[in-house]
């Protein structure tokens, strides 16, 4: 029963030293969707991988919403419809990247991280793979929702490193999971109820390399009334000043109380299928 409005903002920046931006972001109010994908550099076309990830994911969800595509009934029937939709889209995106990667040496072994969040009436559902992150800022508290799929975090999980050590570890950059590397990969899927007033932050590793969690939280708290886009730009700028070694992408999502609807919107709501 809890309805809310969602405000999105996104900024992506090439950083100070990179020659291309391999990140891709997408925000869509229509789909209630925000995605950050960080393509992997090295030897291949990271920006292509992240582009495919973002566009295939969004397009699939759009098609499912329009009933041009339906989620097979056998596809994880115990999940919520939103989660199934998101996971199917992510799987298709992974396959698209993987098969593109097989077509040419230029694309060989390209890959991308993906962190996406989609909203339904009550919940935010997150799909996650790689080292992009989703943070939740709620009631002045700042929490990382996703777990990085990096070797460093694996070590943390095994108790071999502390979180603090992991943040400065060299193996933080070595991903244990990414899209496009295998035909089928495992995604982290998380669902949590959102509250009015929440701010969600999706970012690529560029952002948190430049800014610590404390600093990000501080910026978010001080910027509670600033426009989201401005806040996004501020985060990216500050991170760039401090580090700037990598591409920086930021998506900010704010959960707002439902707006007053116009007569037309009300009528639309009245006569449209309730979800």
């Amino acid at each position: 029963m809890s309805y809310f409005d969602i405000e999105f903002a996104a900024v992506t920046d090439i950083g100070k030293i990179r020659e291309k931006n391999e990140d891709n972001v997408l925000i869509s109010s229509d789909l209630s969707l925000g995605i950050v994908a960080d393509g992997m550099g090295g030897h291949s076309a990271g920006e292509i991988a992240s582009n495919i990830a973002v566009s295939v994911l969004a397009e699939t969800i759009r098609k499912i919403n329009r009933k041009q595509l339906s989620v097979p009934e056998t596809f994880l029937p115990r999940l919520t419809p939103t989660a199934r939709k998101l996971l199917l889209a992510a799987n298709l995106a992974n396959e698209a990247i993987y098969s593109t990667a097989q077509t040419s040496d230029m694309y060989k072994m390209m890959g991308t991280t993906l962190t996406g969040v989609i909203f339904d009436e009550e919940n935010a559902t997150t799909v996650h793979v790689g080292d992009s992150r989703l943070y939740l800022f709620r009631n002045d508290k700042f929490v990382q929702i996703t777990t990085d799929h990096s070797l460093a975090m694996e070590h943390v999980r095994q108790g071999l490193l502390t979180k603090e050590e992991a943040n400065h570890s060299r193996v933080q950059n070595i991903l244990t999971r990414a899209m496009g590397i295998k035909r089928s990969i495992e995604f982290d899927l998380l669902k949590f109820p959102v509250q009015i007033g929440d701010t969600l932050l999706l970012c690529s590793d560029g952002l948190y390399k430049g800014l610590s969690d404390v600093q990000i939280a501080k910026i978010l708290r001080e910027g509670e009334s600033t426009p989201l886009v401005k806040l996004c730009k501020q985060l990216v700028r500050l991170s760039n000043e401090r580090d700037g070694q990598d591409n920086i992408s930021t998506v900010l999502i704010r959960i707002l109380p439902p707006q007053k609807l116009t007569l037309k919107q009300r009528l639309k709501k009245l006569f449209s299928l309730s979800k």
Partner: protein
Amino acid sequence: MSDNTSLVGKEISGCVILQKVAEGGMGAVYKARHKALNRIVCVKILSPSLANDKKAVELFLTEARAIAEIDHPNIVNVYNVGREQGYYFIVMSFIEGETLSQIIKKKKVLPLSQILELFEGVLLGLDAAHNKGIIHRDIKPSNILVTKEGQAKIVDFGIAKKMEKDKTTTKTTELAGTAYFIAPEQALGRDLDTRVDLYSVGASLYYVLTGQFPYRGKNTIDIIQKHINDPIPDPAAIRHDLPVWLSRAVQKLMAKTPEARFQTAKEAYLFFQRMRAEEQLKMEESSTGRIVNLAEEQPLRLVQEEKFQTTTVLQQQRALEKEMNSKPAVVNSSDLPVVLPGAMAPEPKKELRQDHVEANKPLNMQSTDQAKKIDVYQSRITPNIYKAKKIADKTIHFLLKISLLPSLLAVIIVAMGYIAYMWGKTASIHVVPHESFVENLVNAVLSTPYAPGQFTWMALSILAVILSFTLASAKAYGRSTIFLLFTIVTAFLAGLFAPNLPFWHAQFLGQFLFSPEYNLAYLLIALLGSLTLCFTLKRSIGQGILGVSLCAAVLVLTYLSTHLTIAPSSEYSFMMLPYLAILAGLLAAYYLISPTQRDSAFMPMMLLFMGVGCLWVYGISGLHENTIVTLETLTQKIQVKNSVLSKESKENKEIEKTAGIDSKREVFSSAINQSNEVSTMKQDESIVYIERQILRIAGEDTFNEEILPIYSRFLRDYYKGGAAKMNYHVWLYALGLPIDNFNENAVNNDVYTLLLVVLFLFAVVSCIGTIVMGENL
């Protein structure tokens, strides 16, 4: 790809590219001929996609230049480095031979002396590189080339460094290969020194000696973590002919901490040399018969060394265990950073683990408690408990909904209905029996000032109604609100037009139920109630109302069909019951199995339309038949009266038939219109005239008063245009019969008119609304 293949035949840095030899992550390796030196060389070209990456290029070049500085037989020689035609290249000596890993895969087991020979070479090569400050970082059998002469040559310096600087995944082939030989400190991302290569040499040596990787796991991460955690394996456990010193040496090379290993490649090399020499000596001595107790002396030293080694390993393991114990093995919510903006110290780790924090710094602890409440963590930590809880929650929610909502709704409905009823009853004093329905309605609402005694009641009632409606409407556009509105209107009208029946008298329930006025009203309420519940699931309100309205229309028609002025054809009444039963069954079944929302909304609509059509046909079925029967009866009576005329008709019939004369009509006309008056009269007069003629012919009591005008109209048509015209008019009239009938009935029951108007208004609004405004019909 085309870029690379097209390189064959090209000339780069004075080398003619001959063929592609291999391809790796960094680029491709070609066999080429150096024109000036006239010798075969190896040209490595940085992959074009990397050529744009400044960092990658820099790395490629600096490493290559560094290697070029080292001139060592165990390291591949670099002749030239640079950029030409947009390609970054390294020209190296071409080595005919195989990598160590290829050899192992082919031969499985190599003689011990050969292995030692090769690894001494590797150690020497590494020592030379280390002295220049170059760390290989990726020593593994596939990076050790073996020439035809049996000399080891190390290749691919600096690749691993590249891997660390840039993001990549362990799923890539390079790192997957590396994982079997990776040093713990490298896997942990700690600062590296030359000793990291020694670990990899140890692991490679283990592999070459035994043919097995030192650690195996289900995935790369598993293997990497075993390098960090698991006890050092003993190669002698697999290959039994190993001398003790060798297996100890391998273990020492693979020590978890760099301090426990040989400190330099040279040290390891020298140790190998000495041990082999001593072994050689021992063998020689024993063969010549001289007994020198070197064997005793030597192990003593080894034991000493081993002691040192094992203690460090133990210490290290203990330290690890300690670390593990102090830390929860599973990452749970309390381990996730919960940070308060403004809290300056970015070191919340230790605070978080404390169970109690002083009151003056509660910031982080509070937040962790709160953070735990988020479902994400719960589902991650204890999915089963969470699931169970969720089911329980759902059940409770459902039970609450079931038990609370309908009863609440019922209470509200009864209360609202009562108020509306009282209101209507109060207003009913203004009803003037012979005025129109609308006037009565308007009077009832507006006449308050003229009835001072009723004012308070009226005002209160109106206030209550408005208040309740507002409250109900708070649940924006709830279906229940519309249902409530219906109830109020119905109750009000019931009160207004039937003031003699008290609302609460239970003993009059039967009266209510079986009196036409209430019958319909209550049926509608019940139907609305059930349907609003039915339609709550995944339907637009517009569609819901449309469905409800159609259901109501069916009911109205059903009711009307049982009160037809002209009796329906008896055949149809038998058809009705099974038809309706089937209809209801289909509907119910469809709700259960409907695959999609759209279907589930569409199908019942279709069924309802069919139901309406069926009832309509049923309603009008009697009319045509009865008209024919009436005509027959009349003609017969006329014929009986004019029996004299009809006697000769038997012969005439044949003639009439061939001449196309309708004798029946002739008879009918002659009887009714003897003086041809009808054709000159106006329509109304002629109907009255015909009516009178019919009564005269058929007798006063043949037809009842209500139907006679209808029949006389048809008979006039028959007289004027024959059977075809009459039938046409009968059917035309029949189409509107239920409505006409309804209007006849509604003269006394204005409730019906209003209900029907409201219903169809709702239906039309919801139809149009759904079509025009609906987003996902």
